[in-house]
């Protein structure tokens, strides 16, 4: 197809002007998913009945003359670690498949529904969100729409692939060490990992409570900001949620970056980026008029500390099941979880202490700069099953290292948008636009500025017949 699939913004307008009914949108979306998903494997379950029922309700509300909701008639889907009433939250893990069905929707699913969204289904992921490639032994790998032989990234790979293939305009995912930013980078779409504590995680399956984040994916910055604004708001049931009021970003998207102080991160972020990834950061920096470069000290140690806490918290979360049913765990991450249960407390405490130090160092940098730029992944999408990636002269195992550039930053909870850049060839790579805590607006403004210039664009691979 040489035409772009519809964005959420256009769909809502088409619906509100009577161009198309919610039921027509839902039906067309379900057909599109049914056609593409057998080869893509982005969806694990398709919530057809619910989607059609939600569409009818949205149509009825419009017929009654009710005020239109911001996401009225917009299809979306969620990573399968979000609770969806009536479905078991499997989080990509066979070991959870026999759990009872969720009795309520996750808070963010409730907010999407309240805003008029139509839930199309739940999306594939690395088991228990532990991985960066969405190669799932039990539920299959999700393919990258830009090259079906390649990984969509992970762990929210189904979310990114569903948007990149034009199946839904908005998807929700989670990001502990890079699980929104890595798949957004490899699939060439926009993604937002908000500040730690911004969006409530109530009703989602945890991985590492200390730095689990939720966030949206979209094909345009306008859709991304629209979704993010819809998702915001306090929820006391998540103890880590900062309970902040909604800080709208969509209305500020056009403010530009002229007055912002921006720098490109060097050092570690150059060292672990191949030529294409470095090129992406340079392209974005040039487009935003950035000349400054800055080296954040101690990033390698931050990544190591994030690794230790991840293994320890992830391992302890699943300790009982690991003891009783280790054989049901995903073989690709079982060893790391088991090892995590055996880590000395001294290591974990040291990692937590370092986390605070590293955060202070990063915050000091934000006295001088409003925004920082770095590549999102060391390389473009690896082949499915590819054991190693090449970063310059370095050869590293693929699965744990796709998050080299994301992991040290989510570790301290900074808000980051990913914007898709096309340095060369047919494969995209994302840049991270990093701001001080609670300044998602700046991340989104910079992403929008890149999009306006045609530098960061989402080339949707519309589902082929």
């Amino acid at each position, binding site marked *: *197809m040489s*035409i772009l699939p519809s964005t959420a913004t256009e769909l809502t307008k088409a619906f509100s002007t009577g161009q198309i009914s919610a039921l*027509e949108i839902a*039906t*067309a979306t379900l057909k599109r998913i049914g056609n593409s998903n057998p080869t893509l494997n982005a969806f694990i379950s398709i919530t057809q009945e619910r989607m059609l029922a939600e569409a009818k309700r949205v149509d009825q509300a419009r017929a009654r003359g009710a005020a239109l909701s911001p996401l009225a008639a917009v299809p979306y889907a969620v990573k399968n670690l979000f609770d969806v009433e009536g479905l078991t939250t499997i989080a990509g893990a066979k070991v959870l498949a026999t759990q009872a069905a969720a009795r309520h929707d996750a808070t963010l699913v409730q907010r999407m529904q309240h805003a008029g969204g139509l839930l199309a289904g739940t999306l594939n992921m690395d088991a228990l969100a532990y991985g960066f490639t969405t190669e799932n032994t039990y539920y299959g790998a999700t393919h990258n729409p830009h090259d079906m032989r390649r990984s969509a990234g992970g762990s929210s790979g189904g979310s990114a692939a569903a948007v990149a293939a034009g199946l839904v305009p908005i998807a929700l995912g989670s990001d502990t060490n890079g699980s929104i930013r890595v798949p957004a980078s490899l699939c060439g779409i926009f993604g937002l990992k908000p500040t730690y504590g911004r969006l409530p995680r109530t009703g989602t399956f945890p991985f590492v409570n200390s730095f689990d984040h939720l966030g949206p994916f979209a094909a345009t910055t306008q859709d991304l900001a629209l979704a993010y604004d819809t998702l915001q708001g306090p929820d006391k049931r998540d103890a880590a949620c900062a309970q902040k009021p909604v800080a709208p970003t969509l209305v500020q998207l056009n403010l530009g970056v002229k007055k912002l102080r921006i720098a490109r991160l060097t050092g570690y972020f150059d060292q672990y980026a191949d030529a294409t990834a470095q090129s992406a950061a340079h392209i974005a920096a040039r487009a935003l008029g950035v000349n400054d470069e800055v080296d954040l000290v101690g990033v390698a140690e931050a990544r190591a500390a994030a690794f230790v806490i991840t293994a320890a918290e992830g391992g302890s979360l699943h300790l009982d099941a690991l003891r009783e049913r280790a054989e049901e765990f995903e073989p690709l991450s079982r060893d790391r979880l088991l090892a995590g249960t055996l880590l000395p407390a001294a290591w974990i405490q040291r990692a937590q202490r370092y986390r605070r130090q590293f955060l202070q160092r990063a915050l000091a940098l934000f006295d001088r700069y409003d925004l920082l730029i770095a590549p999102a992944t060391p390389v473009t999408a690896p082949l499915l099953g590819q054991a190693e990636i090449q970063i310059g002269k370095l050869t590293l195992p693929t699965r744990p290292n796709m998050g080299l550039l994301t992991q040290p930053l989510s570790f301290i909870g900074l808000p980051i948008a990913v914007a898709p850049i096309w340095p060369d060839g047919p494969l995209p790579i994302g840049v991270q636009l990093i701001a001080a805590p609670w300044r998602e607006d700046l991340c989104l403004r910079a992403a929008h500025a890149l999009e306006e210039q045609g530098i960061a664009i989402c080339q949707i691979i519309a589902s082929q*017949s």
Partner: protein
Amino acid sequence: MIEPSAINLPHVQAAIELLFQSYEYALLQNDLATLDHLFWQSPLAIRFGVSETLYGIDAIRSFRAARSTDNLQRTLRNTTITTFSEDFAITTTEFERVGQPCGRQTQTWVRFADGWHIVSAHVSFGV
């Protein structure tokens, strides 16, 4: 009269894009109910196929019910959607089917009180 600013309004294109693809998937799956629904329920609806000339929805419906469902799969390329204001649109596409010459399809869409419908369509093979 159509002003240039009323051509290809994004939200109208969005609506047609979805409906166009619905028609395409329904065609591939021989989903007769959807195909029928997307056509204008009128004796004035017209469909010129490669070898059939059909006037009126009844003739179109009868043809579909009787036709062979072998080799329905096809791949689209160079699809265009051009919309004019809020109620009129043209879609064109080329298509490839294994073992056949390159095909071409043009559809004319009009928005009625009950939504968009194809009022006229023409399919042919290129040389």
